[in-house]
């Protein structure tokens, strides 16, 4: 995938070169008219539904690596859209970056409003940041959807934070919350008893020195890997303010301050490297640590008994994995690290060149309905994207009834450890520094940070 990405960048450069004469892509006047009037709030929801029926289809690109999710979409979402006269076509991605690259390539090739290929994307963090920074979002639509009544959008209310900021980057209501997520660590109690499981990074290091090779994390730039590195930086923040300074953007923070805050964290990552899977033990020169490419790779190592603890996003992932046979029956969750487990939301975004924009609005709205949100929680174990406190007492009781098990930890323990995500502009710097300092072993952290900032 990495090869593909860098090549796509080259292709984009070519396309921009040859497409330069076309300047800014011009869309179809009809799609432009809908976009303008909808975003101005001039259309009633019935008018949107009517136009969506005329469009007749909607193309939704989403990460398709989960059978439970694919099944839920085909059995719940598809029939509901069909009842509204809309055919749902899904594009199952292995990596959301692929569709972001496609949209970049399309717009570089001159495909404007209404002329693209994708209507809606399951998106968050860096990918949203990429589209936003290129002004490739459809517009501020989220609070115009009827089901936005179940989402806090008032900037004065602190509960709006996760809806207004995506990895610290303003969503500008250009994406609709669809799911919540929580970083979580699973252990196999058959190999690692709960009492011996580490709770802090210091305990992890002690445990790893005694049991070398029994842990690893996903390789950045995968978001599951970035998140692990972020929690390490939070925990090693020399000021003891954990996540707080990392809420600032890269420009606000500055290179020097970032270097000062991040140095202990990166030094820790360098220190534990020889004790990770394949790291070669105390004499680390004999080995080279194995970092899986994504959550499937990490789970394979965990399931095959090569590592005893696996950290990734997914509050209820362990419960669902045990139920569907992916994990051994002895798998459970632990609170790790107690210094901060990142929680965030992910969204439904709509690209500017969506060929069926009205149907995209209908899809984003339908996915955020309380019924579908609760059904998704029960079927797949994805946390609600809408805000539960805005739901009726009956709906809240339903949530408690269908939520899968937390597998050995409690909501109170989890709530006490939960911290927000890092600013999206810093995520690039954090992953870039990891690649330079840890993967390429440049040996000079200051130079690695400078290189990461320059490559941004």
């Amino acid at each position, binding site marked *: *995938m990495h*090869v593909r990405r860098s*090549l*796509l960048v*080259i*292709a*984009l450069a*070519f*396309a921009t070169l040859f*497409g330069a004469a076309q300047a800014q892509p011009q869309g179809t006047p009809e799609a432009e008219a809908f976009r303008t009037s909808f975003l101005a709030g001039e259309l009633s929801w019935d008018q949107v539904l009517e136009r969506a029926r005329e469009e007749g289809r909607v*193309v939704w*690109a989403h990460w*398709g*690596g989960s*059978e*439970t999710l*694919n*099944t839920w979409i*085909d*059995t719940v979402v598809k029939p509901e859209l069909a009842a509204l006269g809309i055919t749902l*076509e899904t*594009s*199952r*991605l*292995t990596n959301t970056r*692929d*569709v972001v690259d*496609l949209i970049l*390539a*399309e717009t*570089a*090739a*001159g*495909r404007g409003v209404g002329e693209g*290929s994708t209507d809606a994307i399951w998106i968050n963090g860096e990918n949203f940041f990429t589209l936003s920074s290129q002004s490739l979002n459809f517009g501020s639509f989220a609070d115009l959807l009827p089901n936005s009544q179940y989402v806090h959008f008032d900037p004065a209310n602190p509960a709006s934070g996760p809806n207004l900021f995506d990895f610290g980057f303003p969503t500008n209501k250009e994406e609709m919350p669809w799911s919540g997520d929580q970083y979580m660590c699973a252990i196999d109690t058959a190999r690692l008893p709960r009492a011996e499981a580490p709770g802090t990074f210091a305990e992890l290091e002690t445990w790893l020195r005694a049991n070398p090779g029994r842990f690893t994390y996903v390789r950045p730039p995968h978001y599951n890997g970035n998140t692990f590195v972020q929690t390490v930086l939070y925990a090693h923040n020399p000021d003891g303010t954990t996540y707080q300074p990392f809420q600032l953007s890269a420009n606000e923070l500055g290179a020097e301050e970032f270097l000062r805050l991040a140095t202990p964290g990166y030094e820790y990552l360098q220190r534990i490297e020889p004790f990770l899977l394949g790291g070669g033990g105390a004499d680390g020169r004999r080995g080279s640590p194995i970092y*899986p*490419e*994504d*959550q*499937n*790779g990490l*789970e*394979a190592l965990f*399931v*095959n*008994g*090569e590592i005893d603890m696996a950290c990734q996003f997914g509050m209820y992932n362990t419960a669902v994995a045990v*139920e*569907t*046979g*992916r*994990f*051994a*029956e002895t798998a459970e969750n632990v609170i790790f690290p107690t210094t901060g487990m990142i929680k965030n939301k992910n969204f439904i975004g709509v690209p500017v060149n969506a060929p069926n924009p009205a149907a995209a609005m209908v899809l984003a709205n339908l996915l955020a309905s309380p019924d579908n949100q609760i059904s998704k929680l029960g*079927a797949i174990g994805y946390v609600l994207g809408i805000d539960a406190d805005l739901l009726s007492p009956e709906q809240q009781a339903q949530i408690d009834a269908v939520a899968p098990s937390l597998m050995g930890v409690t909501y109170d323990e989890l709530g006490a450890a939960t911290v927000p995500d890092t600013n999206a502009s810093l995520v690039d710097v954090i992953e870039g520094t990891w690649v330079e300092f840890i993967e390429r072993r440049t040996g000079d952290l200051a130079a690695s940070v400078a290189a990461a900032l320059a490559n941004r």
Partner: protein
Amino acid sequence: MIRQRRRGLGDRDRLGPFGRFYLTVVVGMVLGPFVPLVIGSFAFRWTWPDLLPSRWWWEARATARLPQGWDYVFSPISRVVESTGNTILIAILVTLLCAAISLPAARVLAKERFRGKSFVEFFLLTPLIVPEIAVGLGILVTFIQLGLAGTYWGIILVHLIPTIPYMVRVLTSVFQGLSDDYEEQARVLGASPLRTLWHVTLPMILPGLVAGGLFTFLISSNIFLLTFFIGGGRIETLPTLLFSRVSGGGALDAVAAGVALIVCIPGIVLLVITERFIKEEVFAKGFGG
């Protein structure tokens, strides 16, 4: 492989100890990788260090809330049936188009002499030399501009790139081994060019054409990268479906194992069918050039 095995088993009594050992190794290497695939496709929970699944698919089938293993593979949700249909449809159209394009080219290359012929021959082979990834992205950008990205015709067009060189090569050697006399006689006896082609030329080159078609079909149904680029996730074929199941080094779950087994089917079916039509010499001729 199949032919080798069959002959080997038939002549078993005459094989020496080394021959038997060699045969076992070859059969083991061909069939061995399928053993964990087949077991895995029937597993519900198969984790280390169990040699066999601790729970089988049919045991978990009744209690699972969602379709598991083969139930999922055969449900419309998995898109296995849809992808198989796409793969076969694309491969058939690619084979027909490829044959139509390659026949005249191969005939001219085999029968005529003209300036720059060696250049043309080399030019026809370049798709085999230049890696697909190098041209794929340029093609993608052009296809997006032309509106061909994400369409069946777009995929069929790019599949012609790596298949035409094989087809031309096979057919050129067939034409080279073919005397002009029969065609001339037919024409002397008053047959029109079309009739000559239909009643004389085609029957004579048919085994070569079938061999070339078989290669084209197999190559087309196995192309991943170009299909992935041009299909853009909107048109799934068996290779792209398998890739999305196994990329990232994930565990081989029951569904991935099932899909991997299904992916082998078109090739095996085709081999079995064509083996009845094709004599070994045609393959030899096709490769011998």
